[in-house]
């Protein structure tokens, strides 16, 4: 689904090399977590995959091998909902950008809102929602477009611990149910363990890749306790 071959990225303005000869691949339906300290290039990598950089922003070497016209959607840390649109219309925004008509878009969005547990909130506006609900809408907006690759850029970091656990479980269930290839950036190891099949750790001079037995993590460790423990 995605192959990253000897990828190096340097910012043109600062000259800072944030990714150095990175290699990994992601299979269809696989969930890969990218971990590492702040500034190690996690978000840069996602933005490069999503083709969000202007040509004058970065120098890019190596290859990002993707299916031609791959449908890539990204869920940012901030929900970035349109405040003048209700929940349903925020979810249909992604479909509008694909020129999908309302007759198809609205039932699809309604269905996705059902999956994320927001059926009753279709007519609510963002200012009437909690942080967790906003992030659910953000997620729904991305997955309703039926992406080939879903990129999650620390989507849980703004949420409090209790909500976080519920949302991670819900998202994981949906991602697995819909068999969505997902790359998930986080600095929280527990989140990575719960959600992903494979963890890639980025560092200044190294890249570590390990398979994650998340079945084990889910049964041996209670994720909720573990989240509390790690976050103090």
């Amino acid at each position, binding site marked *: 689904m995605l192959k990253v071959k000897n990828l190096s990225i340097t910012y043109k303005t600062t000259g800072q090399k944030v990714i150095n000869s990175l290699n990994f691949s992601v299979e269809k339906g696989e969930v890969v977590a990218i971990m590492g300290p702040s500034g190690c290039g996690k978000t840069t990598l996602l933005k490069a995959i*999503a083709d969000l950089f202007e040509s004058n922003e970065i120098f890019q070497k190596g290859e990002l091998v993707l299916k031609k016209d791959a449908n890539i959607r990204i869920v940012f840390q901030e929900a970035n909902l349109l405040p*003048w649109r209700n929940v349903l219309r925020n979810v249909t925004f992604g479909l509008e*950008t694909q020129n999908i008509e309302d007759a198809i878009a609205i039932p699809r969005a309604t269905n996705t809102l059902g999956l994320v547990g927001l059926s009753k909130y279709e007519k609510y506006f963002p200012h009437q929602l909690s942080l967790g609900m906003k992030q659910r809408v953000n997620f729904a907006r991305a997955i309703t477009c039926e992406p080939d690759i879903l990129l999650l850029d620390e989507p849980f970091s703004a949420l409090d611990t209790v909500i976080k656990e519920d949302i991670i479980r819900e998202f994981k269930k949906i991602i697995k149910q819909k068999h969505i290839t997902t790359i998930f950036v986080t600095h929280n190891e527990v989140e990575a363990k719960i959600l992903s099949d494979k963890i890639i750790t980025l560092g200044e001079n190294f890249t570590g890749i390990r398979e994650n037995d998340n079945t084990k993590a889910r049964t041996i460790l209670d994720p909720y306790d573990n989240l509390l423990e790690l976050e103090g």
Partner: protein
Amino acid sequence: MKEVDNKKRSWNYGYFSVILFLLLWEYVASQSIIDPIYIGTPHIIMVKLYQMFLKPDFYDSFKNSAQAFFIGYVLAVVFGAGFGLLLGTKKKLYQIMSPFVFTINSLPFVAILPLIIIWFGVGLVAKSFVVFLMVVSPVIIYTLDSTKTLDEGLLLMSKSFKASEWIKLKSIYFYHSLPYIFSGARVGVGRGIIAIVVSELYGFGMGMAYYIQYYGSTYQTDKLMANILLIVSFNFVLIYLLKKIQKKVVFWR
């Protein structure tokens, strides 16, 4: 709750200061501390205003002014908002057009009234055009400025969805700019009314300001003041209505 109380109190102060001003004015005029021929007398002004409402030619003159105002004003707000959005989102267009926009904004429009007479005569079109010129620049500038304040996150989100320029414009920039368009439109009300009054004083048709000039030259101060009061009230009513509409339309703020 506290906020509501404060709001209520400030309204009371507003009414109070106006009533106090009118009482003082009435006293000064009725005691001839200042000759009423210079300032009029509030209660007589109200009587004259009432008498004006009974005369059919008042409605003709009001219609003359209001029609030109609304044509010029609505066109200016619609065009100004659209053009402001384009200028704010198209860098090259901004570079080409901004000198003209800022020139129009600082134009001493009285100086170009003779030119407008040459172009359009002194009828409805000419008057509407003057209003348009006066209103359009604040609407463009407010709208243009609003595009610079759009949340980077929303832009990044729309970019990640590969939203077309048209979708960004109609679904993001337009709504984000609405409060600013309303602000420009509110500033435009005052400028549009000045445009109507000055152009009518200059001889563009027989509207409200024509009567102001007539009553002024015949020392009918009360009638003159009644007309001015009406124009000021027109301004207040429009601004009040715009605020009400804004509250309905820009409900998320």
